[in-house]
């Protein structure tokens, strides 16, 4: 990416930057004050929306140890998941770069792991593993893809002359990998790890929330919801987001200490696909697509067999195929799936569009008024880590259970990654172009429109690709929490009546949609970027 090769260091999003902390505190204080006033003067939802003061009182009443003990279990599981997920991701990224032949299959599996609906695979984890393992696995799954992509991108973003230099001195692939690529991949890796830390915590909480655990924040959430301890439910959400913010800040700090030469980078997936164009044309593209599909189906089958999942529950590709083509019920099943799919596609598209537009607008506002960014970026990061299940009653109370709620849930889920990427990208505009605009007396706004936004386009597409599977997750979540319509709800109702063929068919379909949407955005990206390049 051209933007990445000639940026000057930016000091945005820095941890332990005193003026940054000051701004962030101001932002947080403003938010808390608004919230308090809203509860007092607008509505407390018949006492169901606690004010910050009530939450603070609840936390004081419960005591520090109450939250710290549960949090220690959650963090322990999150940390193990973080370790496993990232280690595996880094290892596979190295393999992918060292053995180009394996790159596509590895990335494909990564995408699938990112697109799997957690509502469906959570129960599978409960059957396959015992003890803490299900939540550790869910935490690992939450970080795997972003780190895989971050590492591969980093390993690729290498100064060619450096590689040539090693080559000139007689170094082979492995020398290049270890002496040059690894070091220069670090900034990208850290960018990914920074996102991974809050994601792992959220993954562990969701895992606990599903059940099968002895303790932890997620389980406490279940109990407090059931006991109508509303301020405590919110307090747990606050603790979760504070933990996530700490994890994010700690990773940022380590990143700055270990890679002091690095400029801030976004987790861009874009650079990855630019090269994948390769030769071969359509025939080759179709062949690789079929190959990937075959691989995914094989892994699906192999996991069911390898872990000896009871056939009553674990349905493989063949059973799902039969479910769809059964001479008696197949047509009915297909029609039903189609109806649900239409709802889910519509809901995800709405969430993706609204979430992205909102994130781009906010990123522009951040760029135009630096203070706003420093004040609210921290808040945005913290909000990202709130388990949405805890906020479901608020969402349905405020937004209802129709399209508005769907759009809001989808937008909340997709907003954050786009905001982070776009904010970084807008800040990374080639300095020379910006200086040029200044010399010609262009306004701040004009510079933004003619220089910064076009050069941030690749990052926008990167964000869209990350956000697309999230938008589908958001649509499933909205169905489950609010509307009761579409694939998301059918996944839970089929599970409730032990219709496991129906369940797996829907999981497969949802995953396929995520991958298709991901690929579709890649295609649009290529067309748009080509048009811009000309």
């Amino acid at each position, binding site marked *: 990416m051209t933007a990445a090769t000639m940026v000057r260091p930016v000091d945005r999003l820095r941890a332990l930057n005193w003026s940054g902390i000051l701004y962030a505190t101001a932002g947080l204080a403003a938010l808390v004050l608004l919230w308090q006033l809203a509860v007092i003067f607008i509505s407390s*939802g*018949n*006492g*169901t*929306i606690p004010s910050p003061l009530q939450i603070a009182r609840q936390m004081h009443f419960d005591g*520090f140890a*109450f939250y*710290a*003990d549960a*949090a*220690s*279990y959650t963090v*322990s599981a999150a*940390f193990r998941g973080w370790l496993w997920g990232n280690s595996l991701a880094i290892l596979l990224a190295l393999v992918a770069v060292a053995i180009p032949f394996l790159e596509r299959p590895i990335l494909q599996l990564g995408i699938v792991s990112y697109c799997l609906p957690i*509502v469906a695979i959570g*129960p599978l984890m409960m*059957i396959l593993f*015992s003890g*803490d393992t299900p939540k550790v696995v869910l935490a690992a799954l939450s970080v795997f893809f972003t780190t895989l992509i971050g590492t591969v991108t980093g390993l690729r973003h290498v100064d060619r002359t450096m590689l040539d230099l090693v080559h000139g001195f007689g170094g082979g692939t492995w020398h290049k990998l270890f002496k040059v690529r690894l070091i220069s991949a670090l900034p990208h890796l850290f960018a990914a790890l920074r996102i991974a830390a809050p994601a792992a915590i959220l993954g562990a909480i969701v895992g606990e*929330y*599903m*059940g*099968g*655990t*002895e*303790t932890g924040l997620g*389980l*406490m959430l*279940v*109990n*407090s*919801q*059931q*006991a*109508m*301890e*509303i301020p*405590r*439910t919110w307090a747990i959400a606050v603790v979760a987001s504070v933990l996530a913010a700490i994890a994010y800040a700690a990773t940022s700090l380590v990143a700055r200490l270990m890679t002091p030469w690095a400029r801030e980078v976004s987790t861009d997936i874009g650079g990855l696909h630019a090269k994948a164009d390769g030769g071969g044309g359509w025939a080759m593209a179709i062949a690789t697509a079929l190959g990937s599909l075959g691989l995914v189906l094989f892994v699906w089958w192999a996991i069911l067999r390898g872990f*000896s*999942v*009871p056939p*009553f*529950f674990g349905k493989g590709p063949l059973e799902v195929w039969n479910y769809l083509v059964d001479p008696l019920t197949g047509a009915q099943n297909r029609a039903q799936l189609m109806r649900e799919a239409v709802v889910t596609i519509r809901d995800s598209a709405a969430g993706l569009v609204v979430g992205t537009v909102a994130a781009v607008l906010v990123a522009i506002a951040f760029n135009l008024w630096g203070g706003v960014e420093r004040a609210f970026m921290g808040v945005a990061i913290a909000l990202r880590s709130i388990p949405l299940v805890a906020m*479901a*009653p608020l969402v*349905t*109370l405020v937004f209802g259970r129709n399209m508005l709620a769907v759009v809001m849930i989808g937008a909340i889920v997709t907003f954050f990654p786009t905001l982070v990427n776009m904010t970084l990208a807008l800040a990374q505009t080639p300095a020379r172009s910006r200086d040029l605009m200044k010399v010609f007396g262009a306004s701040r706004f004009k510079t933004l429109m003619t220089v910064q936004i076009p050069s941030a386009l690749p990052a926008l597409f990167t964000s869209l690709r990350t956000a697309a599977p999230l938008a589908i997750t958001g649509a499933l979540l909205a*169905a*489950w*929490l609010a509307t009761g319509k579409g694939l998301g*709800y059918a996944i*839970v*109702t089929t*599970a*409730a*009546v*032990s*219709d*496991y063929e129906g369940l797996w068919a829907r999981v497969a379909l949802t995953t396929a949609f995520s991958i298709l949407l991901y690929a579709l955005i890649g295609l649009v990206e290529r067309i748009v970027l080509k048009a811009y390049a000309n």
Partner: protein
Amino acid sequence: MDRRTFIKVGAAALAAPAFITSRALADTPKLGKIAYQLGWVKNFQFAGEYIADTNKFFEQEGIAVDLLAGGPSVSAEPIVISGKALVGQNSTDNTANAVAKGAPLKIIGTNYQKSPSSIISLTKTGLKAPKGLVGKTVGIQANNQVVWNAFLKINGIDPASVNTVPAQHDFTPLVSGELDAFFGFSNDDVVQLRQKGQDVSYLLMADYGYPMFNCNYLVTEETLKDKEKRAQVVAFMRGAIRGWQEAVKNPALSAQLTVDVYGKGNGLDQAAQEKSAAATNELMVTADTEKHGLFWMTDKAVDETIATLATAGIVAKKDLFTNEILEEAFQGKTTL
């Protein structure tokens, strides 16, 4: 976070895996060790098993029992079939559905003779009979959808006349006024709501043409045929019966063990758990259990449950239910 607490928290995080291993290494009694998959997170609903564990009833019966916590997304049927747990607990409609789909399972006893399934509303809503549901917005969890549809059918209510929306186990939408009624348990959710000062009423489905067992013990058919496993199940059920006999007498003990030992640190409220435990007795102890012992499923009640399931569109055969383990456990007595 002050320094000492930080160290403590860190140490707890590191110690957690070690603690689990050391427990697994404890001596196992003569019939070995089994796992029981609970139907929900560790709360009062499993007090009998907590007492059996604490008072060493299981140990005296020659068995060690691992109590596996359940939760919102845990279904006992696949877990029992996979062998991760020998015995599991779930509601009758869930198990009957699984069996209809080819799961080789049997129900060997029931916790609740009378189902606690209820439609809960704020008293001021004035919902006094099922007919009043027409035109209301009702929150139903996905896994209770089948039960709900059957309930409407039995009471002659057109499902299209009620606005059914998805819900979880969080009753906030009922209190905030977003929903008019909510599906929940009379011995759990109603108690919790009242404990929080909410004036709620409920329609117990069992009182409106909906007789059904709930929260049953289930095992695989293969377990019943295997001599060794069968002996383990009998020992487990003996321990559970003894534990529940104690629990029925002593709701305070049930609550105390739930809050201080088995569900410790998870934010359960002792007073609410005690009230729930007491409210559970009227579901567990009936004329039938006085005559045959706890968990017993009489022919009449089995027939009624099957008829209710049929209304819900679930085909269940009579041999889904068997008292054979209870017969072995009770040995002709009605208490142990």
